[in-house]
């Protein structure tokens, strides 16, 4: 068990190193960082001073070591656009907005997905089940960025109920969180339905029925408790969906989070910010996955891959 966790941790560190190597080489491969940082009228002397400062005259392996050492201290240099804020500061400033959006979407997904999956399984084959299955099919087939735009068109432009974009109040949160949640609601519903159907046909449920427990208790307590384990296994997948969702949904709704920052910095070739935001997101993503692993081992100690 401990061995499994150590193995997972080692994998995560390797993955993080690959990602760091990628963003490092990206900044070196796509053009001259000195040219990006200085104006076109910079003198030759200014160039060589900056080249030395950035360590660009050193061999690549040494440059990478310097980069990693600085990165570990959260130092990625300053943003090349705007008022040249330190890149990490920018990321930390934007992080809360993303966490707010992602947790809102996750809460909506669980609150809607789990009950729908349970109801669909309990009424397997009935109209309710078919309706819920059509919904999950739609949820997995509609591109979220397009759904966001449709929401803006109906709820903001036509009906005028909610703001089109921006950040600050609860009403700003509703549209982006709902559109981001749609895909995960569908995924969670489907997963809960399948494992509930499994659970409902198992021996301990038969026993509970023979004991004469009310159907409500059997479904919502005994069967559901065991059906939640597969959900934990898929948490990592859901986090990945959330990151993807964050990039496109934050872009559609002009939400000031790190998803939009990542996209903007990649488009602007703002390498310091890009490196900071990509590595921070990867780190968070991996920590989240590791926590899922811990929970999983705690729920089911037999795990051994």
């Amino acid at each position: 068990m401990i061995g499994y966790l150590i193995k997972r941790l080692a994998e995560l560190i390797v993955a993080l190193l690959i990602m760091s190597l990628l963003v490092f080489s990206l900044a070196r491969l796509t053009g001259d960082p000195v040219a990006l940082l200085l104006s076109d009228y910079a003198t030759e002397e200014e160039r060589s001073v900056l080249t030395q400062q950035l360590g660009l005259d050193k061999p690549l392996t040494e440059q990478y070591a310097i980069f990693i050492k600085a990165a570990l201290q959260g130092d990625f240099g300053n943003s090349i656009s705007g008022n040249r804020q330190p890149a990490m500061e920018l990321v930390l400033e934007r992080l809360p907005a993303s966490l707010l959006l992602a947790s809102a979407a996750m809460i909506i997904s669980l609150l809607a997905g789990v009950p729908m999956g349970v109801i669909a399984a309990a009424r397997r084959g009935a109209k309710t089940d078919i309706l819920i299955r059509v919904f999950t099919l739609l949820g997995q087939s509609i591109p979220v960025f397009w759904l966001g735009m449709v929401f803006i068109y109906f709820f903001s432009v036509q009906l005028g109920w909610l703001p089109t974009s921006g950040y600050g109040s609860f009403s700003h949160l509703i549209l982006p969180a709902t559109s981001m949640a749609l895909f995960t609601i569908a995924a969670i519903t489907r997963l809960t339905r399948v494992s509930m159907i499994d659970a409902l046909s198992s021996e301990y449920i038969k026993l509970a029925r023979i004991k004469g427990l009310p159907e409500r208790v059997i479904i919502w307590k005994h069967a559901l408790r065991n059906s939640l384990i597969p959900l934990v296994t898929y948490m990592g997948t859901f986090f990945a969906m959330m990151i993807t969702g964050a990039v496109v949904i934050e872009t559609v709704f002009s939400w000031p989070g790190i998803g939009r920052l990542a996209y903007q910095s990649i488009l602007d070739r703002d390498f310091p910010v890009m490196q900071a935001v990509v590595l921070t997101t990867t780190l968070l993503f991996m920590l989240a996955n590791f926590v899922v692993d811990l929970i999983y081992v705690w729920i089911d100690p037999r795990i051994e891959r």
Partner: protein
Amino acid sequence: MSLSNQKPALIISAGICGLLIGIALFAPWLAPYDPSAGNLLDRLMPPFWQEGGSSQYLLGTDVLGRDILSRLLYGTRISLAVSLISIAIAAVIGSTLGIIAGYLGGWVESIIMRLVDIAVSLPAILLALLFGVLFGPSFSNIIIIIGFLLWSQFARMARGETLKVKQSDYIDLARTAGCSSLDIMFRHVLPNVAASLIILATLQVGTVIIIEASLSFLGVGVPPPTAAWGSMIAEGRSYVISAWWIAMFPGVAIMFTVIAANVLGDELTDLINPALRNEIGI
């Protein structure tokens, strides 16, 4: 009893998928206009049923005066070509590695499966955006990017299925008959795991169409002026209020295509190997 009576969903979804492939193949004959050449005099025309619309442009025109319907028809090509080619690449690479891992076992398996675990734990969208910027947006690059994101799932499934068939008598027989490992893996194991891999491939089509559309929407897909559904939505974004049709129709096209692909994948799973449902999960 014919198949069509028992499985209406299978027949309908297969029919729609066939129709979409037909549209992709015959787009030049079906489309009334050149998808990338516009007439600026006819820009931002609404669809024919709205005031100001004309039967000349059934679904209206975009900001450059290009015919939306023609662009939609041509967009089918990009969506289908990207998904089919990238899934094929991912399936070949992933299945090969998975079968090798499952059959040979030992340190080879450890290395391959660690690689799979690592590939799975990288945040896909950021990777795709980074690659998109590094190599520039192009048709072949988006295929490589998406293929790279998918291979690990094929490797996982191929390994799992290989472990199941590895124990069977005919594999033992082949081994005693003196077949080489390579022979056994690709002559005897592959045909027996192929059905599951084909199901996985079908189930991926919908996902890939959405990934491609998302990347095109973000500007790292197939570059303009080529018509791709995702980039059409991006182009319509600034006109949601004044010209809703630019972004609306490509979204509907994506939705219908993905629904058809997903239903077909589900139905094929039920038809060929229902036990796979639990393994694929979502």
